[in-house]
């Protein structure tokens, strides 16, 4: 369980707080997504959740951040990283630089934790397999593509076995296939191990398909906090400079001209959109079979 209680935080040498009175409680095993325009405070929230605020970024913090009932201000960052893993945007900067192969790179965190060698080898093999980069084990981490590096970064965190994983736009530099693999990895983690996941992300379709909960940040405040369906189909979403997912936009436009049943919920996933449009009698009469073109979405 992670709990933020009226957290306000201002970075050093800045006038405006990056987080304002943020209260958020995330139960164990929840997959909570965070969206918001650039500069809304997503990264800051990620740093606060993983202990880097206040331990790494100084600045001014008020309110309380607790992880499993431990106040993050009361323990050291080194203690916290054993509970919370952090993956961020730039894959290159997440490579430690201390290691010469992917296998050793993933081992870096385990070595610091003092994990015995035999267990380390099992954990590394399992994690590389899970993230789908077992074939890269002996390559240099600096000779990989961005997507491959990002998966190394995720593997490095997963190998450390954190109960909470915070990901700050981890797929922004990945291709669609890489992004799908990351999301599916996260989903599997939650199902297999009950890992709590907090994910700041722009890819709304993915959030709609996978997340349990969706928090919207605007100007350092939480402005919406509900199920992905409710948030993504809410008309006020655009007020926070977030465009609604394509399926929602399409169905809204279709509803205006009577092609989407007025009593039907707006769709947030491809399946729902397909079903909704298929059931619409006027569309059926044009014999448009969306089911045959399902593969084109990403």
């Amino acid at each position, binding site marked *: 369980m992670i709990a933020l209680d009226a957290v306000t935080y201002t970075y050093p040498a800045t006038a405006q707080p990056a987080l304002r009175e943020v209260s958020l409680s995330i139960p164990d095993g929840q997959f909570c997504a965070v969206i918001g325009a650039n500069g809304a405070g997503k990264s800051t929230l990620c740093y606060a959740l*993983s202990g*880097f605020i206040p331990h*790494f970024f100084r600045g001014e913090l008020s309110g309380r951040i607790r992880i499993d009932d431990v106040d993050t201000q009361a323990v*050291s*960052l*080194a203690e916290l*990283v*054993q509970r919370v*893993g*952090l993956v*961020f945007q*730039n894959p*290159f*900067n*997440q*490579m*430690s*630089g*201390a*290691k*010469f192969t992917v*296998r*050793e790179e993933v*081992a*870096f*965190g*385990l*070595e*610091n*934790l*003092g*994990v*015995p*060698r035999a267990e*380390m*080898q099992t954990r*590394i093999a399992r994690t590389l397999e899970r993230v789908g980069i077992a074939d890269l084990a002996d390559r240099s981490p*600096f000779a990989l593509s961005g997507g491959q590096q990002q998966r190394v*970064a995720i593997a*490095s*965190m997963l190998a*450390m076995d954190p109960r909470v994983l915070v990901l700050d736009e981890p797929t922004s530099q990945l291709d669609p296939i890489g992004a799908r693999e990351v999301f599916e990895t996260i989903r599997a983690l939650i199902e297999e191990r009950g890992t709590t996941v907090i994910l700041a992300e722009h890819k709304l379709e993915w959030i709609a398909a996978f997340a349990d909960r969706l928090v919207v940040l605007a100007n350092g405040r939480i402005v919406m906090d509900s199920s992905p369906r409710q948030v993504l189909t809410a008309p006020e979403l655009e007020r926070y400079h977030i465009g609604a997912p394509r399926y929602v936009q399409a169905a809204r436009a279709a509803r205006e001209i009577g092609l989407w049943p007025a009593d039907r919920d707006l769709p947030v996933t491809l399946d729902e959109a397909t079903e909704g449009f298929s059931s619409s009698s006027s569309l059926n009469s044009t014999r448009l079979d969306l089911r045959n073109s399902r593969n084109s979405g990403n």
Partner: protein
Amino acid sequence: MLIYLTGRSGRLHGLNPITKVMLTLVVIVCGFVLPGVWATWLVFGSIVLPLSLWGGIAGPLLRAVARITLPFAISLFVIQGLFFPGGTPILSLGPVSFKAEGLQFALLFASRLFLLSSAFMLLLLTTHPGLLMLALVQRGLPANLAYIIVATLQIVPRFQARAASILDAQRARGLETTGSLLRRLRAIVPLVGPLVLGSLVDVEERAIAIEARGFSLRRPKTSLIDIPDSRAEKGLRRGLIVAPVVLIVARLAGWLR
């Protein structure tokens, strides 16, 4: 940056890095403690050369050492030969003359430099830097220091690559980087700015990345890689300590002239 020769699984490569570090230090101490030019070359010929042949790196080693020592040797001979205070002139070229003592001094110095660099090359060409640092950390070198050394080895090439791409980007916007000295100096400003600022951001993010992996945890670290250390090598290292001690004592006692 990395001069370690991969792909050669020579016998020297498989030795424990600590053994090679000791070997290097012993060679250097012996070369400097033994008097005279002949002793320096004796140490080279009896230890460094056979080992490099055994390890299959004699060619690259000699090339690297020549590249390091040759420029020094030439300037040593010229400067010491010409400007050695006093001394007997043996060759006169107009107003200047080479002195015998100066040339002798230069020869000794160049020989020792040769031995020193060849001993280091023996270590560096056959030892993976990561493995060397790991071995040193296991013997008490601070992990932070080892991290800085290894990370520098890996990150400097990326830094150079970024400098090159900034240079290209600024040239594409019309920055003149050729021509007079003044023009070249002026061109530095728009190159250094992005490079330094970008690197500062990188440093912060990399600090977060290694913190997130528990780098500052105060507990004994383990290691994925097992560095082989046979009984024979342990014995060899004990033997290696004896040689310089004996030589230093002999030198102090005045047995070596």
